[in-house]
């Protein structure tokens, strides 16, 4: 069908034939991504609700439990993700102008930041697993035996785990964009995938901006 294949360059690319113009297709894809992000907001909202319930019911527990987290690593990750959002934005604007080398360079920088985020996350998780600072029934940390603390860790692991999964998926998509960019598929007339991946990536970043203070800086 009319979707692109690897050999088509961005100048020759046709839009899918049920759209009247390429612009209409671009607008549709962008709207689709926005709606998808609304879905994502509601998905995370469930966990934020669970968090809010715990916070209201057991404020002291939350205060005590958050000290099990390493706010320095969290802050480092915040900086890394904000940087990656910036490079992603630069990649999008490069794609709009069709500057192939710049697209690829900025996408690689975004990918490296995302990888760095996951590495920091790995060290955080590894430490907690080693100390048995684990969710719910698995919690066996002797230093803090306050009631309901394991629930805080359940929320922490589920929220950061699902967020981490989003980062991993984003990394896969960014790598796919790099491959397509090096085949010269993006340019002023067609940069939809870069644009909507950008939207997704900013969303993932934004979720972390909320997660970091809520989980690491309870006060």
């Amino acid at each position, binding site marked *: 069908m009319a979707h692109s294949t690897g050999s088509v360059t961005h100048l020759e690319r046709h839009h899918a034939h049920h759209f009247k113009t390429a612009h209409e297709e671009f607008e549709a894809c962008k709207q689709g991504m926005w709606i998808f992000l609304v879905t994502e907001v509601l998905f995370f909202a469930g966990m934020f609700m669970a968090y809010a319930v715990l916070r*209201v*019911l057991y404020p*002291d527990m939350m205060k005590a439990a958050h000290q099990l987290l390493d706010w320095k690593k969290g802050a480092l990750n915040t900086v890394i993700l904000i940087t990656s959002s910036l490079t992603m934005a630069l990649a999008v604007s490069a794609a709009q102008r069709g500057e192939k080398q710049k697209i690829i360079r900025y996408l690689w920088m975004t990918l490296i930041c995302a990888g760095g985020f996951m590495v920091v996350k790995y060290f955080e998780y590894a430490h907690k697993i080693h100390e048995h600072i684990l969710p719910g029934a698995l919690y066996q940390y002797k230093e803090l035996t306050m*009631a309901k603390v394991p629930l805080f860790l359940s929320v922490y692991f589920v929220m950061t785990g699902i967020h981490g999964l989003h980062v991993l998926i984003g990394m896969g998509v960014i790598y796919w964009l790099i491959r397509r960019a090096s085949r010269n598929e993006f340019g002023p007339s067609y940069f939809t995938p870069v644009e909507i991946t950008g939207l997704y990536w900013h969303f993932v970043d934004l979720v972390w901006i909320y997660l970091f203070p809520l989980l690491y800086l309870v006060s």
Partner: protein
Amino acid sequence: MTKLLLCLITLGNNAFAATLPVAGTDIAKSWDAVYWFLVYLSLVFFVGIVAAMVWFAIRYRKEKNRKPKYIHGHTGLEVIWTVIPTILLFVCFGWGWAVYQDMIHAPANAMEVHVIGKQWSWQFVYKNGTSVTNDLYVPVNRPVKLIMSSEDVLHAFFIPNFRVKSDVVPGMYTSVWFEAKLPGIHQVYCTEYCGTVHSGMLARLIVLTDDQWKDWLSGKKIDVDSLPADPTFPGYRANRLGEGMPEAVAGSTGGQKQLTLADKGKAVVTAKACIACHSVDGSKMVGPSYKGLYGREEKVVANGKTITVKADDNYIRESIENPLAKVVEGYPPSMPPYKGQLSEEEILSVIEYIKSLK
């Protein structure tokens, strides 16, 4: 002819009325009034809608009316059928809410019985320590409040004849109350799905006359089979799972000699050394005294803020299981949590003991 008509109306009325259980309390009667109001209101709308539909289908079918009229709407009509139902609905809401207020707020002098739901039986624990499985004995014409919790999964306690129902939830207390007007046996069901024997998790509510109640309290055996059967289904016996014989909690069987629930609570607070920090005479120790605590409005620190809570069953339960959630103002947050260390029955006996220290 008139006689026949009257007869038919009476018959119809009785048949109609037979679609609800008997009203075993005064509140059930006011509940019925709301219900029948809703039934008749619904009938008016239903008959109107269906009659219009059938009439149009006959009157305006193609053969009778070849040329349809070109109409898009009628603002007046649309306003009417938006506004009138809205008003009626809020009448329903208001009336329903008023009755609900009576249904949930038990009078202060209500006799309390504890209910523990478990897969798959009902345990009823009285203040004097008596514990009965699947048979709930209560006196007629006295308000009774059931304070309920579950040992495992969700259950629900349902007495159709009294129109009361509540989920029975592990980890918290819920309650229903009633003032039985009809002596005899009433059916109790579990109405929250709880596994294999859910449909067998039945109990009998046995409403005793004053004399019978005195007998039962003094440990005499009541001949349940001679009591009036469930008046909703006169031809049938009420059912319960298993044997429903009273069994004493503390092992002794002689009605008055057994430990009361409050006594049992006293034993628990002694054994668990609660009294090391909580006095029973009103004197201030590490924690607040039990004396006069129950039902008092307490200033507590929660979420860093000072709020006022009533020291009721759920508060005391929370303070046993998770004491730091709401610490009474002026006391240190130093009590360890007792979650999982006390059985359902031990917790409610402690609450009962605190209640007894007026």
